């Protein structure tokens, strides 16, 4: 037994093994115990013995089905991330073939975050958020569009019009794929879910997508817009009954005009 470990207390060596495997040590104790077991075979053995049980405890919870919209949120982010990684690899290879041209980054506030974009040119138009009362007569208008790229290769970040107070949304478009990022959104309501729609012309009918989503407790969500963004003029979001709708049953709460 190693008596030099920082976690040693009145109970003697091994006393922290059980709370460790249950996740019940404080952060400081946890860190100290990790250091300790590096050199204490007794505690390692104790942890190994008790951890078998602790790892089985999750199944003691009543088994529920994960909400379908949760999968859409997770996989939307995963696909977007996979797409971003691919784009970054491509951009990296482009950069290495054009050294000396320099690099420009997307604005810090953009949903693209750290995504670097090369090129020049930015254009934007802005119209302030509408009040909730205007929701029924939602006037589709362009908010802010930032072209954070140039040369045809980067990411465009489009700030969408949102009819809900304190909420904001932006659409990132890169290599023909679009991702919607929302913040400060209220929950869609009991028995309802947000649904993403696309339009290929301003006067055309919204086409449903299979992107249904809810927002986090903080009102945030990241949603990949299914299909190619090429030819899409507008991306809209409405509140719909669970399972989504084939045609919008309510006025859009988010409208992003792509071009």
């Amino acid at each position, binding site marked *: 037994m190693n008596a030099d470990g920082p976690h040693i207390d009145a109970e003697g060596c091994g006393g922290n093994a059980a709370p460790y495997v249950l996740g019940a040590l404080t952060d400081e104790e946890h860190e100290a115990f990790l250091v300790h077991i590096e050199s204490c075979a*007794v505690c390692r053995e104790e942890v190994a013995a008790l951890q078998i049980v602790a*790892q089985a405890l999750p199944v003691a919870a*009543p088994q529920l089905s994960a909400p379908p919209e*949760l999968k859409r949120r*997770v*996989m939307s982010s995963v696909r977007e991330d996979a797409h971003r990684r691919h784009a970054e690899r491509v951009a990296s290879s482009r950069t290495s073939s054009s050294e000396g041209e320099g690099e420009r980054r997307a604005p810090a506030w953009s949903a693209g975050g750290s995504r670097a974009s090369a090129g020049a040119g930015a254009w934007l138009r802005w119209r302030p958020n509408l009040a909730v009362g205007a929701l029924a007569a939602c006037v589709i208008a362009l908010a802010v569009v930032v072209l954070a790229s140039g040369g045809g290769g980067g990411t465009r970040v489009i700030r969408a019009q949102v009819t809900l107070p304190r909420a904001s949304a932006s659409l990132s478009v890169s290599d023909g794929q679009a991702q919607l990022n929302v913040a400060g959104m209220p*929950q869609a309501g009991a028995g309802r879910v947000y649904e993403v729609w696309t339009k290929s012309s301003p006067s055309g009918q919204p086409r449903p997508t299979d992107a249904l989503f*809810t927002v986090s407790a903080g009102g945030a969500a990241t949603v990949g817009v299914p299909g190619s963004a090429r030819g899409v003029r507008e991306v809209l979001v409405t509140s719909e009954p669970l399972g989504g709708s084939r045609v919008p049953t309510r006025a859009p709460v988010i409208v992003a005009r792509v071009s």
Partner: protein
Amino acid sequence: MQLVYRGQALAFEVIYDRHSDAAFSLAFRMCAQRALAEDVVQEAFLSLWRSGARYDRSRGSVRTWVLGTVHNRAIDALRRRTARDRGLVAEEGIEERLAAPERERTEIEFARRDEAREIRDALDQLPGEQSRVIELAYFGGLTHVEIASMLDAPVGTIKGRMRLGLAKMRMTLGDPTEVCNEC
């Protein structure tokens, strides 16, 4: 997992489909709020996606890896909450609304149901004082210090109950390996 390492979203989707119900069940059991449980599961899976290369097969199954990550995220979330928030009661009726649907069961699902029943039975068979500290720690996200304060018992007593309870569960579940009593 090799495909996940390479950033293939479809491979990750298979992992999500296999383990998301268990992950959500654990998160909801700990958080008692659907929105918070969803956030925890989302954070956990995205973390796993971004750190797939850190999965160490020698340290357990993918399921253990997933549920361990969910557990850690849920603890983080619970400890961020204020004392007032901790008083929140579970959302009533959500178990019924989200109960795993009856469907054709695979052998794996049957085995998992049996395993779940065995674990619950083993937990139920413990003396109340031992099962309580284990539940407060594992599912409640409380530290042993907080549990000691809550139950008005010495910290050493709480640690001892945790250890005894886990050791008994291990014996009940049929693992013949003795837990060291001399440490």
